[in-house]
């Protein structure tokens, strides 16, 4: 396959590159499939070759050459430092707080970075039945911090979740402490339009970074609540030639 040499990154590429940059100084990252997995593998190539990739299938220290389709592809098992059974993964590694960063996705995100992956509509009679919790609730409770990766649309960034599957910052200040969570919770929500981070006092998401070429109006339009914008809003550094070519080469494998 040929690797495109178009110097302009797509919105999805920017999102992946920004997520990868967050892992530059991280020891271990818990990832699901899709863009989080791509970002973490990219981080190993470009920023942090020692980064330990952990998939919930029990593969710890996986070093995939290709982007896996599932969280349990054979290549993850073959390249892992070691493999653990699922109860051990959740009790000894995730629950015990041994993993520094977790990447999570969601169908709905609210202003406190709480997540829904269960249903759209009513629980008993859902309009759309989503896959469910998977590992997310305990991952978000116990990993050092959580980075949410989601497409920026009004359907995703909602005023009110249809179902609270995974607690981010709950109802605001002190919520995580009251619930007994030991991880710090979501530190960023990375979208294809920008980056949202929780305000240190209110724990409400604030737009802190906007990707190059994106209009602020487009972000407000794609967010169902009245999104606060940081006074020191920055523009995302465009992907470097190195980041972009590494990402495209990875995608083409």
């Amino acid at each position: 396959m040929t690797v495109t040499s178009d110097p302009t990154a797509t919105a999805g590429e920017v999102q992946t590159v920004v997520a990868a940059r967050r892992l530059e100084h991280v020891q271990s990252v818990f990832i699901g499939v899709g863009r989080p997995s791509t970002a973490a593998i990219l981080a190993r190539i470009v920023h942090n070759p020692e980064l330990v990739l952990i998939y919930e299938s029990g593969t710890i220290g996986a070093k995939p050459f290709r982007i896996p389709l599932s969280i349990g592809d054979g290549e993850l098992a073959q390249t892992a430092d070691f493999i653990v059974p699922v109860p051990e993964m959740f009790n000894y590694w995730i629950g015990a707080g041994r993993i520094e960063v977790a990447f999570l996705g969601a169908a709905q995100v609210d202003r406190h970075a709480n997540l829904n992956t269960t249903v759209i509509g009513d629980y008993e009679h859902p309009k759309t039945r989503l896959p469910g919790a998977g590992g997310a609730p305990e991952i978000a409770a116990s990993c050092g911090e959580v980075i949410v990766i989601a497409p920026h649309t009004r359907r995703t960034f909602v005023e009110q979740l249809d179902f609270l599957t995974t607690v981010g910052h709950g109802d605001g200040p002190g919520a995580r402490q009251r619930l007994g969570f030991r991880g710090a919770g979501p530190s960023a929500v990375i979208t294809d339009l920008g980056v949202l981070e929780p305000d240190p006092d209110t724990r409400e998401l604030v737009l802190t970074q906007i990707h190059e070429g994106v209009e602020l109006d487009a972000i407000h339009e794609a967010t169902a609540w009245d999104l606060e914008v940081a006074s020191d809003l920055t523009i995302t550094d465009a992907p470097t030639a190195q980041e972009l070519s590494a990402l495209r080469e990875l995608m083409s494998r």
Partner: protein
Amino acid sequence: MAEITTLREAVAELVKDGDSVALEGFTHLIPFAAGHELLRQGRRELELIRMTPDLLYDQMIGMGSARKLVFSYGGNPGVGSLHRFRDAIEHGWPAPVEIEEHSHAGMANRYAAGAAKLPFAVMRGYVGTDLMARTTVAPVTCPFTGEQLVAVPALNPDVGIVHAQEADREGNVQLWGIPGVQKETVLAAERSLVTVERIVDELVPRPGAIVLPSWVVDLVVEAPGGSRPSYSLGIVDRDNGFYKFWDGLSRDRDAFTSWMNENVLATPEASVR
């Protein structure tokens, strides 16, 4: 001691209509051949238990064999939705399915408690979520520190079915690669069936492998390719193309039904995808 038998006889002997059955496999070693034999023998009203009900349970739900589903993640991994699972929950087709859902941590701990023959497991989790009110968890206080934790009830399926790479002629089983909850499923279940890629004269110990001794397994069946389209590390590769193909095919009720009739119901034992 485990008895070595055929898939047809094993399913006929172990699984009855209405049973709770766990066909486990965490992306790896999924017992498709055994699940398909359950369909061929027309088992109904099953309580299907599995952490990650992917294509196999999508097929079983779509064929109407499930009364209830106990699970923690119902998706086609890396691809998207399970369309038959969704159709059953959203529209009651072909029949309504009762659901009981957990988180992965909850399900894994439920299996571990089941394997230990304890009534429940203790963990941190569920609190603050809407799941708490929708599933079988209960708050519990640590008798030593007073910390608030949650209890999840043990899972002890009537039948546990898993796939593994190999067994010897005495029915000792060895599996390697991603172990998922294969061991817990066999140890938690009242009755168990292990299908294997091959039966060998002697099990050669492998680093990191899990061994299930013959005396904790009821029946062992040689079913080469029995995990396809999932995989058996080192023997059969994962057929990622099939998982993508399924996403298209399974959207349509009629296309699904005719595919199942042709490729599962009308095929002999163990000649499965």
